[in-house]
């Protein structure tokens, strides 16, 4: 691996892009490694959170966005809570996932994004979550037809899964929110691109 600095590179666009989402400067990170040390998912990550923050500091966009780390992060907020420098690492992970999806980076982990899509799709349709639909659709999308097949009945017979979704009376409003969010996010990334 090589980091090439072609010319003046004070703060890269990518760094600024992340900072605009988290509302904080990543320059505070002094690479102590505490985030990696306490991360429950670190053993499964290709780079620990500390190195992801470093990539962001140096503007190494491709490394950061193609790592499996950002999809392996459990959003447990352990890192942010213990970071001696108050860096919002969990927020950075979110920001990277958001950017990766917006900019259509090849997603390292389709399971996670598939789940996200279906989950949010459900909210859009029903205003609320529809659990059996979530599990069913998810398994179909990820082609894991038999996964958790044993858990389904357990829940079902305990009366914990409802066959019919329950809707919020707010569904129209919810769709409106989703529509405006899309506009807003498109506008803010356009803004950011414009500034760069």
């Amino acid at each position, binding site marked *: 691996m090589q980091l090439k600095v072609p010319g003046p590179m004070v703060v890269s666009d990518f760094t600024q892009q992340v900072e605009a989402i988290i509302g904080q400067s990543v320059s505070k990170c002094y*690479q102590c490694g505490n985030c990696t040390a306490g*991360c429950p998912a670190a053993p499964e990550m290709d780079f620990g959170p500390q190195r992801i923050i470093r990539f962001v500091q140096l503007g190494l966009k491709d490394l950061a966005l193609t790592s499996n780390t950002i999809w392996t992060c459990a959003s447990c907020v352990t890192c942010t809570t213990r970071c001696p420098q108050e860096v919002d690492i969990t927020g950075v992970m979110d920001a990277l996932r958001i950017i990766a999806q917006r900019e259509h980076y090849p997603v390292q982990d389709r399971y996670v994004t598939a789940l996200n899509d279906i989950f949010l799709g459900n909210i859009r349709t029903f205003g609320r979550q529809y659990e059996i639909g979530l599990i069913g659709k998810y398994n179909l999308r990820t082609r894991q037809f038999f996964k958790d097949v044993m858990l389904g009945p357990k829940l079902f017979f305990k009366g914990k899964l409802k066959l019919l979704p329950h809707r919020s009376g707010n569904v129209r409003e919810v769709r409106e929110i989703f529509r405006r969010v899309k506009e807003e996010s498109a506008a803010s990334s356009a803004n950011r691109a414009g500034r760069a």
Partner: protein
Amino acid sequence: MARIGVFVCHCGKNIGATVDCERVAGEAAKIPGVVHSENYLYMCSDPGQLKIKDAIRDKKLDGVVVAACSPHMHERTFRRAVAEAGLNPYLAEMSNVREHCSWVHQDIEDGTAKAIDLVRVMVEKVKLNQPLTPIRVPVTKRALVIGGGVAGIQAALDIANGERDVILLERDPSIGGHMSQLSETFPTLDCSQCILTPKMVEVASHPRITLLTYSELEEVDGYVGNFQVKIRKKARSVDMDVCTGCGVCMEKCPVKKIPSEFNVGLSMRPAIYTPFPQAVPNVPVIDKENCIYYIKGKCKVCEKFCGPGAIRFDQEDEIVTYDVGAIVVATGYSLYSVGEKPPGSTIAGYGEYGYGNIPDVIDALQFERLASASGPTEGHMRRPSDGAEPKTVAFIQCVGSRCPEKGITYCSKICCMYTVKHAMLYKHKVHDGDAYIFYMDIRSGGKNYEEFVRRAIEEDGVVYLRGRVSRLYRKDGKVIVRGADTLSGTQVEIAADMVVTANATLAQPDSQDVAQKIGIAYDKYGFFSEKHPKLAPVETNTAGVFLAGACQAPKDIPEAVAQASGAAAKVLEMFAVDELEREPTIAVVNEDTCVACFFCKRICPYSAVEEKEIKDRDGNLIKLVSHVNEGLCQGCGLCVVACPSKSIELLGFTDEQLFAEINALAE
């Protein structure tokens, strides 16, 4: 009418080339009040000075302006000459026509015009100058040293060996400070007690040193050369003159289970105790909070067994007052605790380390006691929970330091070095043990320090892991250490038998009170502020008060001792003269117009402004006014501008004088 003399210097060609000195002298002669004006090749030479002296006598001058070089160069020279001629030296001023004029301009017209202006400014000022006498303050040639750690001990000995009296004030029952708790010291590994104890004994036996242990500072009054200090000698409940230090009382005392402060809770002490066997003075104190007699009214076992009959239950605190000329503050430091801090403190503990409740997680000072031959385990490595010899030890650096979230932002400076020392001492004692150090940086800038670190790694096999530790918890009698090594980019988990945390070095918790009593500044962490970070690192902003050791910033022993000797030299310098002479350009208050708003008091950086009561003959309070202590005032003039009723003047820079100067420049 004023009688001013003006003397214009050519400085060879230095001034003469760009300033027409004759014309300047000629123009000066035309200024009202100037009765004598001349120019000469070298005013500072003997003949030049003689001209001034002669003119003063012949023309009965009451003011002198020398238009020459910068006053920073020759003001003293000319003031001395003027004084020799019998005129008050503060009636002479200089106009800077060389550095500020001839050397920076080339056009002779411009230069001459400017020189004339500069002379005019000074003439108008001098007309309003008043005779001043330098402030002379007598010096009490006795010093107070506060704090009996290695820094205070060194400062006290140096001053005492310079043949001056010293009062050494220590609040604990014995002197010695933190150094007496250390096992061996980096980078040479000499035994701390072995090198410190002789100095402690020397203090106790030095004829020039009055040692006040178990005593606290109550109050400081006065100013440089003339402080009055009040000290509370707390009741020891033991007669110092009678006690022989036999120690029988400590053996017999039925209270046995008080955690020893000296051993940082790793052993127990009785209610009557000396902190450690080599204590100086070797006289116990009774800890009244824990003594059965003081709690319940009966016991007195110690009294019964004390052969010489030294126990005094009825002893009371005693307030003593001393006059001292200088104060050395050497109150040292305290250590951060990973335990929860009281509400209101900006410093939080480490919840992820169990707030210090895991028994085999000890702090660095506890490790020193474990490693010390005179410690609770006689130097054997035994972990607190079960006394077993730990085979895997993890050391964690920067605990609380460089951690704005939970501790402080600064680097504690000494912990990198003492941690490597700890790992090394551990490896020397447990040959088959493993020592891991979690670090962020290794800061080893000091003579032979880096070599010491390399030795630990290369020869003793200490393993450094670069990363912080996120979590500690107990499992199966081990302490699980979850850390990281950022160099390999991996998470690290160690099942350790014992963990040692290098806790941040903090100021003493009461340092701000102490600073306020003495009237010195402190930073936001409570460390005392030096006068200048580079050029006056042992002085404070308060004349006559000096700093030594870790009370100013985290320091190791060599630095603490060096600063202590520096402070002692400063004290001896002050004591080399009988009177201190200070510039008389200080503030004075007009008590008639002062309205007692004390804006001046609030703004003065030197706490030189006091509230003064004006009483009538019967002692009834008439009014309160402001008063400037001439010993403390440094003459900055801040108060003058702050005063809404224009009741303060700065001598030598009065409003009247300054307006005269400004007006002199008007067309």
